[in-house]
């Protein structure tokens, strides 16, 4: 299940972030408990709790005492902004570097993007 380079708790946190960005988890919605996560992925609950801690530190989740963890009202906005900031560095720059190595001209990439976006753009 977890064979990515990042630690398991990081992957749990990333999974929750993805759910928030894609809308699977709504703002103010309750998140499954660390124990449910632990049982589901068969991992130590302390590991799952670390993932949750990461998200509370970032303000993505907040705790309602005695009830559980909830998605912050500003979570989606924050995450979208972070991803937009990282988009060029992590996606575009990498693609450009790969294109250069294998000899794809920039214009071809632009053309492709225009094709993909054609419907919406015009």
């Amino acid at each position: 299940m977890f064979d990515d380079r990042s630690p398991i708790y990081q992957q749990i946190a990333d999974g929750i972030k993805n759910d928030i960005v894609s809308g699977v988890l709504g703002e103010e919605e309750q998140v499954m408990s660390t124990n449910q996560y632990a049982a589901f992925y068969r991992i130590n609950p302390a590991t799952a709790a670390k993932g949750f801690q990461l998200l509370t530190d970032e303000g993505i989740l907040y705790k309602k005492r005695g009830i559980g963890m909830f998605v912050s009202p500003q979570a989606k906005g924050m995450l979208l902004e972070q991803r937009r900031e990282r988009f060029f560095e992590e996606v575009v720059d990498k693609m450009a570097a790969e294109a250069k190595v294998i000899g794809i001209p920039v214009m071809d990439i632009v053309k492709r993007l225009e094709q993909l976006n054609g419907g919406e753009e015009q």
Partner: protein
Amino acid sequence: MTITIEVSRLGLLYDKSAKALDDVTFRMEGGKIYGLLGRNGSGKTSLLSILASFQQQTSGEVRIDGEAPYENERIVNQVCFIQENGYLSESFKVRDVIKLASDCWPNWDADYADRLLNQFELPAKKQIMALSRGMKSALGVTIGLASRAPITIFDEAYLGMDAPSRYYFYEELLKDYMEHPRTIILSTHLIEEVSDLFEEVLILDKGKLVLQEEADKLRSRGSAIIGPADAVDQFAEGLTILSEQKLGGTKSITVFGELGAEREKRATADGLTIGPVSLQDLFVHLTRKGIGSDERKHG
């Protein structure tokens, strides 16, 4: 209620020259799942049997809930030690063993024991000697779980079980641990299967404690680097190299220690690939012959 284990400068001699345990010091906070890893003959079972008061150390101290456990009635029934072949008598029936266990452990949950026996399809009337290896293991696991002892130790206890039974055990262990937090110590060779259950890991080698660390942290400290040999060598400067392999101009190494964001960035720029190292691989590299023990010791 959870119980702390403190071990200080523990030593155990087989005879005058052979040390089963050599100056072992650690502390186990109560309520966590620990993985105790070591090669055959590294001293795991010696250590665990001292914790369980099955034998006494030659030197050093053990404190369980603040007291020495050996021949200490208050502590003895707080520790449940399950070994692969730990039965008093092969002529006992399954239900005799269960009855005995229920008298031993104050927190014994009879309903839970029944459920587990059922799940493992263990016939109550069968004699221990008539059980297969896998069934004996399942009986041990049943006793360990149903004991609900504040310190429960499984010493290779589930090796004889087939994969579906082992997976059932892992799930049950995790579930019951979350409902009834207690200290669980798992000593195992099947590291890959259980490593995600560990909160902390202790590695023993030749009777010495190599390290004690949070499982997540330990995992994050191992990296596999692969790329052009020169670049790999340059990258590895100042890092502890656990293993290296060469294939033509390509080199692959396993390193131990934080890389840091700066180094990781440089690696990508230099055309190196950084990959994870599993706990099992780290364990293999850390306990392989010929690696200096001083280099490896970190807090």
